[in-house]
C-alpha cells in the first residue's frame, strides 16, 4: 500500500506516506490497494462520462455512483475490504453502461484506453495482484514526486468535492455542472497529466467547482431543515434511553429522529453533527436531546462510555473497540468489517438496540453551549459588526476552522483561541472547534466573541460572510482585518483549501503540518502565489496577523 492523503500520515526521514501493512488510521494494505483500484476504475468511468456530458447526455446513476464511491475512499470512512470488492464489480458494470451509452450517442467514436479499458477480476484473491496497476507509488517513480504530488492534490481535492456533493445529493440536490466537473477531473487524471501548470490549473478549477458544490450543499441543508439560528445546546445527558449519531449527515440524523419519535428514546449528536441543533426543523424534535462528547479522535473513550447504540454516518471512524462493536452501526459510505451497516435509511434496528441497552441512569446538571451562527445570523447583525469594527471595538477576525485530530500538536488551536486578544472575534467551523468551544470567550459589542458557523460542510457560509464583509468595507477579502487559520486533516479540507485559493484568498495559515503529498517545490509555488503559511506558535502567529492588518 501507499497512501499519503491525510494529515496524520506516517512521516519518516524518507518522506511521508503510510506504506507498511497498515496505515496510521487503521486502514489495512488490502483495503488501501482496493481503494486505489476503485479510483482507477472511476477514472475510467470519468473518461466515458465526460464525453457523454459533452454530447449533452448523462448517466445520472453513474454520476451518483462516482460521488459515493469516491466518498468511501476518504480518510476514516470505509475500512471494509469486502465492500470494495463489491464496489469494484459495480464500477465495472457502471463503466460498461456509460461506455455503451457513449458509443450509442456517438457512433464511430473511438474506444478509449487506459482505465476505461480495465477489466477487474471478481474475487478478492484475484483482485489483489491487479491493484498494482493503480498504485500511486508507481506513478511517483515514473513522473517524479512533484507531478505525483500535484496529481494527488487534484485527486484529494476531488474526493472532498465528491463528499460534499454526495451530502447534497442525499438531500435531493444535484447540478449537471457538478457531475460534469467531477467527470472532467477524473478524465484529466486518467490522461496521466504531467504538466505542472496544467495540474495546478485543474486543482484551482476544482476549487472553483467546490464553491458551487458547497453552495448547493448549503441550499440542500437549509432547504431541508431551515436556516440555522443561534441555539443553546445541552452538552450533558438526560436520564433515559439514548442513541448517539456521529459524522456529518443531517439526513441520517433526521432518519434516526423519525425512527424514534414518541418512543421516549433521546437522540444525541456527536462531533460534526453538533450544528444540527441549530436547524429549526431538526431542533423541533423534542427528543433531539443534546450533544455528547467531542471531536472524532476521542470516540473510543466516548463511545465506550455511551450507554446506547451509536450511528456513524460519515467520516471519521476509528477501529471500533470490542466494548461497543456490537452497538455501533455504520450508514452511507462508512464501513468496518463485522460492524452492522444500515444501507437503506431504516433505523428501526438502532431504535431496538436503544431499548435493549440501559441508557443514562441519571440526568446530569445542565450545561450548554451556544451555536448556530451561520451566514444569515451573522449577516443579520452585519451593521453591528461593521459598526464595531469602524468604532475600533473589534480589531480583527480570526476564522479558526477545520478538522481536529489526535496529534498533541493540535493544542495550537486551543492556544490560539485562548490567546487571541479580547478585541477580536473568533469564528469557527469544523470539528477543530472542540479544542476551545467549551470555554467561555466572553462577548464583544453585544455579540458572543466565539461564533460557531457550523460544520466543515458550512465553509460556504464562512466564505459568504467574508465576501459580505469585504462588500461592507469596500475592500478585497485579503484587505479585511481577517485571518484564516485552517487546520486540515482529510480531503474535504483539501477541497475547501482549493476553494479559498481559487477565490484568491491569500495568507491562509495551514497546519498543524503541511500535506505530505506536496513537495517542497510545489509548496514554494503555493507560498509564492497564495502566501500559504505554515503555523508556528499561537503567540507569534497572532502577532503576525495583527501586525499585517494594522
Amino acid at each position: 500500500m501507499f497512501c499519503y492523503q491525510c494529515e496524520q500520515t506516517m512521516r519518516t526521514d524518507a518522506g511521508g506516506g503510510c506504506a507498511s501493512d497498515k496505515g496510521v488510521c487503521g486502514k489495512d494494505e488490502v483495503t488501501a490497494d482496493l481503494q486505489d483500484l476503485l479510483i482507477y476504475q472511476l477514472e475510467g468511468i470519468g473518461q466515458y462520462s465526460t464525453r457523454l456530458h459533452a454530447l449533452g447526455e448523462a448517466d445520472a446513476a453513474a454520476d451518483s455512483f462516482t460521488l459515493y464511491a469516491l466518498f468511501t475512499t476518504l480518510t476514516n470512512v470505509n475500512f471494509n475490504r469486502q465492500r470494495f470488492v463489491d464496489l469494484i464489480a459495480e464500477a465495472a458494470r457502471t463503466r460498461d453502461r456509460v461506455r455503451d451509452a457513449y458509443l450509442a450517442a456517438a457512433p464511430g467514436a473511438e474506444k478509449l484506453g487506459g482505465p476505461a479499458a480495465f477489466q477487474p477480476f471478481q474475487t478478492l484473491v484475484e483482485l489483489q495482484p491487479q491493484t498494482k496497476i493503480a498504485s500511486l507509488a508507481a506513478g511517483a517513480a515514473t513522473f517524479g514526486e512533484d507531478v505525483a504530488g500535484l496529481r494527488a492534490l487534484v485527486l484529494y481535492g476531488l474526493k472532498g468535492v465528491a463528499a460534499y456533493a454526495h451530502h447534497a445529493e442525499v438531500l435531493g440536490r444535484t447540478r449537471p455542472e457538478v457531475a460534469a466537473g467531477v467527470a472532467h477531473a477524473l478524465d484529466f487524471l486518467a490522461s496521466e497529466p504531467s504538466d505542472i501548470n496544467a495540474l495546478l490549473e485543474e486543482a484551482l478549477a476544482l476549487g472553483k467547482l467546490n464553491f458551487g458544490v458547497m453552495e448547493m450543499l448549503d441550499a440542500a441543508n437549509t432547504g431541508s431543515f431551515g436556516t440555522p439560528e443561534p441555539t443553546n445546546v445541552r452538552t450533558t445527558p438526560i436520564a433515559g434511553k439514548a442513541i448517539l449519531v456521529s459524522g456529518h449527515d443531517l439526513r441520517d440524523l433526521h432518519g434516526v429522529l423519525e425512527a424514534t419519535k414518541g418512543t421516549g428514546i433521546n437522540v444525541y449528536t456527536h462531533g460534526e453533527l453538533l450544528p444540527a441543533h441549530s436547524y429549526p426543523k431538526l431542533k423541533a424534535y423534542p427528543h433531539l436531546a443534546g450533544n455528547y462528547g467531542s471531536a472524532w479522535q476521542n470516540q473510543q473513550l466516548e463511545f465506550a462510555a455511551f450507554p446506547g447504540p451509536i450511528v456513524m454516518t460519515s467520516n471519521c471512524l476509528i477501529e471500533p473497540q470490542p466494548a461497543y462493536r456490537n452497538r455501533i452501526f455504520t450508514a452511507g459510505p462508512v464501513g468496518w468489517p463485522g460492524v452492522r451497516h444500515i444501507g437503506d435509511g431504516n433505523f428501526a434496528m438502532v431504535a431496538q438496540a436503544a431499548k435493549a441497552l440501559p441508557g443514562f441512569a441519571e440526568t446530569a446538571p445542565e450545561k450548554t453551549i451556544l451555536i448556530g451562527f451561520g451566514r444569515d445570523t451573522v449577516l443579520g447583525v452585519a451593521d453591528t459588526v461593521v459598526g464595531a469594527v469602524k468604532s475600533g471595538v473589534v480589531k480583527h477576525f480570526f476564522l479558526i476552522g477545520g478538522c481536529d485530530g489526535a496529534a498533541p500538536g493540535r493544542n495550537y488551536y486551543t492556544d490560539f483561541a485562548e490567546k487571541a486578544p479580547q478585541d477580536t472575534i473568533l469564528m469557527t467551523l469544523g470539528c477543530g472547534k472542540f479544542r476551545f468551544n467549551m470555554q467561555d470567550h466572553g462577548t464583544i459589542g453585544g455579540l458572543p466573541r466565539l461564533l460557531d458557523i457550523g460544520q466543515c460542510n458550512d465553509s460556504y457560509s464562512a466564505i459568504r460572510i467574508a465576501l459580505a464583509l469585504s462588500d461592507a468595507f469596500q475592500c478585497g477579502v485579503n484587505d479585511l482585518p481577517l485571518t484564516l487559520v485552517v487546520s486540515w486533516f482529510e480531503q474535504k479540507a483539501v477541497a475547501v483549501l482549493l476553494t479559498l485559493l481559487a477565490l484568491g484568498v491569500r495568507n491562509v495559515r495551514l497546519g498543524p503540518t503541511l500535506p505530505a503529498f506536496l513537495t517542497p517545490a510545489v509548496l514554494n509555488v503555493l507560498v509564492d502565489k497564495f502566501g500559504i503559511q505554515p503555523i508556528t506558535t499561537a503567540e507569534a502567529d497572532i502577532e503576525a496577523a495583527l501586525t499585517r492588518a494594522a
Partner: protein
Amino acid sequence: MPDSQITLLTRDGARIEVPCASGDTVLDAAAGAGYHLPAMCHQGTCGLCHARVTSGSYEMSGYTESLLPGRDLGDVLLCRCTPEGNVTVQLPCREDQIPRHQIPLRDAVVERIEMVWERAVCLSLRLQPHDELGVAADFAPGQYMELAIPGTGIRRAYSLANLPNWDGLIEFLIRIQPGGQFSAWLTGQARVGDTLTVRGPAGRFVLDEASPRPRCFVGGGCGLAPILSMLRHLAEFQDSQPVHLIFGANQEAELLPESEIAALRAGLPQLTLTLAVMNPGPAWNGFVGTAAAALDASLAPGVTEPDIYVCGPPKMLLAVEEVAARHGLAGRVIAERL
C-alpha cells in the same frame, strides 16, 4: 511474577494498578489487565495514546518526535513507552471512559430445552434486565459463557451458538455427558422458566474479520457451537470470502443434521463442507478419517492458505496444530479447547 507495576491515574482521580512484564509497553500491559486505552496506529505515529509519566523511568523508541513537544515533561505515547521499573502514568481521560473488559454476571431464564441431535441439547435462555447492560445479548461470535446450575454453585462453560441480539436471547449446544453434573441437571431437573446465573461473555476464540484470507473451520460434536455462531455471523454480513467447514464425527449418526447444513448453505452460498467420519457404516461414501486428516487433505499445494479456526477436544486441537505446522500455517490456527 510481573516485572514491574504501572499505576494509571485518571483525570477524575482514580488509581488503577496493572502489572507489567519486562519489555511490554504501557498500552499492552493495560490491555493485558483488561483496560483498553484509546489507540489507533500502534506505531507511535498518530498521537492518540498520549499521556504523561509522572514518576518512574521508561524507554521511548520508534515514534514521531514532533508529536511530543512535552517529552521533557514526561509526555509519552503509551504504545511506545516501555517501563523500566515501576511507573505512574497520568491519563487524559476519566475512569468511566476506559473501555474495560469486565466479565458480567447476569440472570437468565430457561426458554427452551430441546434434543437437537444425537446426545446434543439446545438450551435457550433469555437474559434478564441488567443495570449496566440492559437486556442486550452482546458478545462476539465464538465466545462462551459460564452457566451455573441453580442452587449449587457448580458452573460449566459453554460456547454461544447464536448471534448477538437485542432480545437477550442466548443459545447453547450442549453435549450430554453421562454422569456429568450439568448434563444431569439439564436432562433431569431443568424446566422452562427456571432462572440461572450466567457469567460472560468471555474468551478470545473470535473471528479475525480483517483477515483477507479464506477461512477454514474445523470442529466436531458440540465444538460446532462457536463455529455455528461465527458462520451465522458471516452469513448475516454477507461475507463472500471462501469458507470451508470440516466437521468430524465418530459415526454418521453424530453428524450435523441435514436441515442445519441447508440453513448454513442458504446464508453462505460459497460454503464448502467436508464431513469426516472415523468409523462409518458400509453406506458412507464421504471422507473416512479424523477432521485433522480431512484438513490435511484440503491443504493441497496451490490452495490459498486459509486461517484455521478449530474448536474441539485437546487431542483434536493437537492434531490440527500439527497438520497446520506441517503446511507452514502454525501462526494461522485460532483454537478453542473444549
